[in-house]
């Protein structure tokens, strides 16, 4: 059974059709890669799933139940977590408190602040942010903040994680680390992942399946290497071949 | 019913509406270009009013001239404020971000300071001048000459401003900044100088309105606030950057308020004003300023 079902979802912003008739499924335990040129609608799709936006038409179902139209907090409680394309840490709070808030307000709903902070620290340690627990989140480097954002999602105990360009702006070494981190989420924590990336090598290495979008539509779905090499995708990126 | 249909009431509505339109134009300019909520706008009106009052009382200055003087004085105040406080801040990005975010509190402080300076200097008692008191008859309408002047001068000033925005380079620069501040800088518009002009214009227009008010009403140190509230209502109603909208919105509010009070009673004026104010803020939570939160 698929964990996430996107069924003919469209999103209009005034006259602009950001998404048109998008449909695909994500199975439990899968890593599905989402790629496409800028403006293809990838982030919009993530925002719709997470509840930050509402679809103009279509349905989104998680675990068999419809979730489109619910508030972001309610969707978080169902077990969906999301990172943002431009990181949004709680900059004025400590690194630990960032994750502790997720632990307290996510589906786990840890009521005791002390215990939430302990769990948060454990997560930080696992993510290599352990020693920075007391520092202000705003003082982290970009790589650190991206990592914190994933750690925060981890804190909510999400079953489906939506990653939005977590590797943008990272060095090659940081990208390699992040690839391992993402793989770990699936392998060690059993999470299902929908990941948007422009860093092709990461996408091809991580994804079980690849979805390609262009101008708000899905143009290809399937095995990453097949899809990446397919004619439609190349055309979408580079334009029609001149004979 | 007779009252409602009387040209008198319409004239009153026009007087109020013209003043509101003028004020809204000034406020809209400053917020539109610099995202600063000048909640001290009404105090500039108050200052303009006092300039005319004292000019007339002490120097027997013709209120028309005094009004122009008030507008100029206010414009100068705006330039001084901009040059001394805001321009140095524009250099420091962090400080400027704080100003924008806290502009309301800062201008509230300015408002308190101006009100109390005036109270200190002039005492809190309301003062009025008597000028052009004769009643003029136009058809069925009997209106005080001073009120007629307010309408004429006020509307002239409004249209003058609109002409400035439409027809001059400065106006074009202002509209560009309102629409897309960063892009305006990129195409070579001198943001700082344009902002200074905006301050001069915005404050000047408020000073002018103050002078007009002095002709028909009493001035007092604490008279400004209702005008500030009204101006805010209008710019939310008419739309940010929509300078024509300020004109239409101002007239509309003048009509709504005047007829609303006529239908109920004078004591309901404040309830009406604040009620409309709150209603708009609630119905359009981001106003027309912020990005409409898409859900």
């Amino acid at each position, binding site marked *: 059974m698929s964990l996430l079902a996107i069924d003919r979802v469209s999103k209009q912003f005034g006259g602009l059709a950001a998404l048109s008739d998008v449909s695909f499924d994500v199975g439990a335990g899968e890593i599905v890669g989402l790629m496409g040129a800028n403006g293809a609608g990838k982030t919009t799709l993530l925002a719709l799933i997470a509840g*930050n936006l509402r679809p103009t038409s279509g349905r989104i179902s998680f675990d068999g139940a419809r979730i489109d139209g619910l*508030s*972001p*907090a309610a969707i*978080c*409680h169902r077990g969906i*977590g*999301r990172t*943002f394309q431009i990181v*949004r*840490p*709680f*900059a*004025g*709070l400590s690194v630990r*408190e960032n994750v*502790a*808030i997720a632990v*307290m*307000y*996510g*589906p786990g709903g840890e009521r*005791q*602040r002390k215990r*939430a902070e302990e769990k948060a620290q454990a997560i930080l340690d696992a993510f290599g942010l352990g020693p920075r627990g007391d520092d202000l989140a705003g003082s982290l480097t970009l790589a650190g903040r991206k990592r914190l954002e994933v750690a925060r999602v981890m*804190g*909510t105990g999400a079953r489906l994680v939506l990653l939005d360009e977590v590797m943008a702006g990272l060095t090659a070494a940081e990208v390699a680390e992040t690839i391992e981190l993402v793989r770990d989420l699936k392998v060690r924590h059993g999470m299902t992942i929908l990941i948007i990336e422009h860093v092709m090598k990461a996408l091809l290495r991580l994804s079980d399946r690849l979805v390609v979008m262009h101008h708000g539509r899905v143009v290809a779905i399937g095995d990453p290497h097949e899809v990446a090499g397919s004619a439609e995708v190349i055309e979408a990126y580079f334009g029609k071949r001149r004979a | 019913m007779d009252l409602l249909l009387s040209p008198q009431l319409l004239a009153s509505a026009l007087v109020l509406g013209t003043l509101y339109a003028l004020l809204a134009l000034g406020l809209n300019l400053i917020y539109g270009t610099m995202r600063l*909520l000048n*909640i001290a706008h009404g105090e500039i009106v108050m200052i303009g009013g006092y300039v005319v009052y004292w000019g007339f009382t002490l120097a027997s200055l013709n209120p028309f001239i005094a009004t122009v003087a008030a507008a100029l004085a206010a414009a100068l105040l705006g330039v001084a404020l901009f040059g001394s406080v805001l321009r140095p*801040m524009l250099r420091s990005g962090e*400080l400027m971000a*704080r100003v924008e*975010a*806290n502009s*309301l*509190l800062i201008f*509230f*402080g*300015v*408002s*308190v*300071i101006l*009100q*109390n*300076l005036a*109270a200190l200097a002039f005492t809190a008692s309301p003062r009025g001048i008597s000028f052009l008191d004769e009643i003029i008859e136009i058809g069925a309408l009997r209106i005080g000459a001073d009120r007629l002047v307010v309408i004429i001068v006020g509307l002239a000033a409004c249209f003058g401003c609109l002409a400035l925005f439409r027809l001059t380079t400065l106006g074009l620069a202002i509209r560009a900044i309102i629409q897309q501040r960063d892009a305006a800088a990129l195409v070579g518009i001198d943001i700082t100088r344009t902002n200074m002009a905006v301050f001069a214009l915005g404050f000047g227009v408020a000073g002018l309105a103050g002078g007009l008010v002095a002709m028909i009403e009493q001035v007092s140190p604490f008279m400004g606030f209702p005008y500030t*509230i009204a101006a*805010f209502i209008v710019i939310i109603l008419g739309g940010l950057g929509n300078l024509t909208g300020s004109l239409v919105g101002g007239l509309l509010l003048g009509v709504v308020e005047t007829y609303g009070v006529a239908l109920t009673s004078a*004591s*309901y004026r*404040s*309830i009406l004003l*604040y*009620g409309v*104010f*709150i209603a708009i*803020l*609630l119905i359009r*939570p*981001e106003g027309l300023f912020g990005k409409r939160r898409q859900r």
Partner: protein
Amino acid sequence: MNRTAILPLVLAILFAAGLLLPALTTGYWLGVALTFFMWVGLVQSWVILSGLTGYLSLGHAVFYGLGAYVMVLTWGQVPFELAILGAGLACVLLAVAIGVPCLRVRGPYFVILTFGVSELVKFIVVNIEAGLGRAGRLIFGAPLIETLYYWIVILALVATALAFLVSHSRLGSGLRAIREDETAAETTGVPVTRLKVIAFALSAFVPGMVGAVMVLRTTYFETIHVFNPITSFTIVTIAIIGGSDDVRGPILGAAFLMILSETLLVNAPEIYMIILGALLILFVLLVPKGIAGGLTGLIARRRREAGS
């Protein structure tokens, strides 16, 4: 001495001294102390909403006024202790009622909205009173000032304790998340609307009771005086001058204000207001964390220098 024990100790001393004061002095200085504790109570409450969530209320006088109104309306019909409590609860109800629509509005719009609401309620009450044929109301047989004083000190204590507890609780973390980034908070599972309304309601409780007690002190109720926007302005100014990050700030700010007002208010009220306005501007621009924040920074720097 353990650093974390200093604050509760200082507070304990402060409030103990407060409660002992009537034994040592009467009349004028008691009045000053009463006013001081009144501001502490008001500002600590304000911080629960505005300090933690960043939604600045410029209309808190509405709760003070409503509390006073409840007291005068029920005077002589119920024991005044009950009226005080009733005033607090009435304000909580008002906060919940207006909170839901108002807290959808963000940033500076929320600020002017709260101001507008306070003024609207003021003019509604003005019209109600006019409709009832009342220009003002007198209270006869009000409790002694010593009694009122104890009440105010207790209310200040309650407000401080409430602010402290909320700040250190799960609720406080959620509120701070809202202040930092409301969208990210909501995506992380924080029920933002619910928490904001709760904070608003909590911030209304003590001010309502304070208003009820203070009207017994003046024994005269006039709508324009109790719903005074200057009260709202002073609360915000105290919070900004003193700092709103922890419970020290409102206390320091209130103390600063009392010193200022004692020297200026009676003789030169306009100059007092001008200085207050100037201080607001100065602190907003240059010392955003207030005196308390400045102290914290100073202590932290000294420690760093000592440690290295």
